[in-house]
């Protein structure tokens, strides 16, 4: 005890400054400086959040500006042109209609197996045998391109009959359809808007469908082409 007292009296000049200096260093090192660093880190985080908010609000505004009815109409167009399900009778009816309009007579039809096509689409083959003038075969090819469904001509085999321009043509046609798989979307992903090229292509496709989609129940009562697609492709 006496020793401690002597030591204290000897070094008391230095004791208080050393203790307060140490306390300052400890508080600075373990409290103030880490708090400063985490302040800057959090400030960066806040800035990121603000940017995300801006992006999300712009995205929400873009989505809100898209007209629901025209969007649904467009969906119906693409679902008609490329249906979700295989419908052989409907496809047959469409093909029969095209063949007749082209000025040909359908002699024979063969139904082929299903296959996986490009862009994850499914398909089946319909091989048709038709009779008629060569100009009608040319019309058929044009009408298939303008059909309200995706038909792909796989090959053309033509046999001319005796003299004259009457031919017998065997044409295998691939008919496409594609299921509607749900896509998972990230909230932060940008809006996939339609480009001008897409809109023009969509306008061309909607002209291929004979019945106006905005007025599905025709007032005239004449035979109406029934679109193949569902109104809600995710049903």
């Amino acid at each position, binding site marked *: 005890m006496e020793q401690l007292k002597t030591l204290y009296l000897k070094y008391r*000049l230095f004791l208080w400054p050393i203790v307060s200096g140490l306390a*300052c260093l400890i508080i600075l090192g373990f409290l103030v400086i880490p708090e400063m660093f*985490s302040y800057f880190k959090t400030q960066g985080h806040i800035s990121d959040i603000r940017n995300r908010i801006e992006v999300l609000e712009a995205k929400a505004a873009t989505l809100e500006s898209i007209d629901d009815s025209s969007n649904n109409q467009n969906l119906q167009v693409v679902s008609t042109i*490329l249906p979700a399900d295989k419908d052989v009778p409907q496809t047959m009816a469409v093909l029969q209609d095209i063949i007749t309009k082209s000025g040909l007579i359908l002699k024979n039809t063969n139904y082929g197996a299903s296959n996986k096509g490009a862009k994850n689409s499914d398909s089946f083959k319909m091989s048709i045998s038709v009779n008629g003038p060569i100009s009608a075969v*040319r019309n058929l090819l044009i009408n298939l391109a303008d059909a309200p469904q995706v038909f792909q001509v796989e*090959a053309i085999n033509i046999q001319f009959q005796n003299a004259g321009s009457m031919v017998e043509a065997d044409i295998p046609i691939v008919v496409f359809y594609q299921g509607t798989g749900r896509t998972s979307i990230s909230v932060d992903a940008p809006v996939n808007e339609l480009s001008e090229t897409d809109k023009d292509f969509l306008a061309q496709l909607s002209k291929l469908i004979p019945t106006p989609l905005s007025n599905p129940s025709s007032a005239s009562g004449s035979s109406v082409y029934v679109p193949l697609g569902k109104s809600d492709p995710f049903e």
Partner: protein
Amino acid sequence: MIKLSVNLLPREIIIQRTHNSKILFINKLSIVALVLLVFFTSSAFTIRFAQSKELSGNEKNLALAQEKVTGQQVKEQNLIFLKQRLDTIKTLKSGDTKIKTIFALVAYLLPGDIQVTTASVDKAGNMSIALNSPSLLSLETLISNLGDREKNNDLIERVDMDSLYLGRESMYKVSLKITQKK
């Protein structure tokens, strides 16, 4: 008149006083340092508290913005579906362009007096055609047209004549193989 100051205090007391003043000065410095430190520490905590309030406010706004976007998710999915479908339709519709093009081209370039007996176009857009021609001139016109880059729109790579003979009724029977450019 020169002033003289005389310190009558004992030397020990003077030393003691100097010593004490040093202690006092160092103590004052220490107190100032501690006060400054307390000031900085409390400022740091106040700023952090304000920042955490700002952060929670921004996080709430972020959640609201995310909710707004999630509310439009069906529309967004429909849009993605529409775009994917359009891309697929574009690809599929252009899949048989070669077949149709070569058929239309050959039909267009055929001279009027040539009769086609058989014609076939395969998946790759290559055409095999068997013809009856009354004259070699018409055949020459056809082959020349098929080989002319301007006339064939630079679509044809080559034309092979598989056979040529003079048949009955003085008709030249030809079979051609037309290969399209890839």
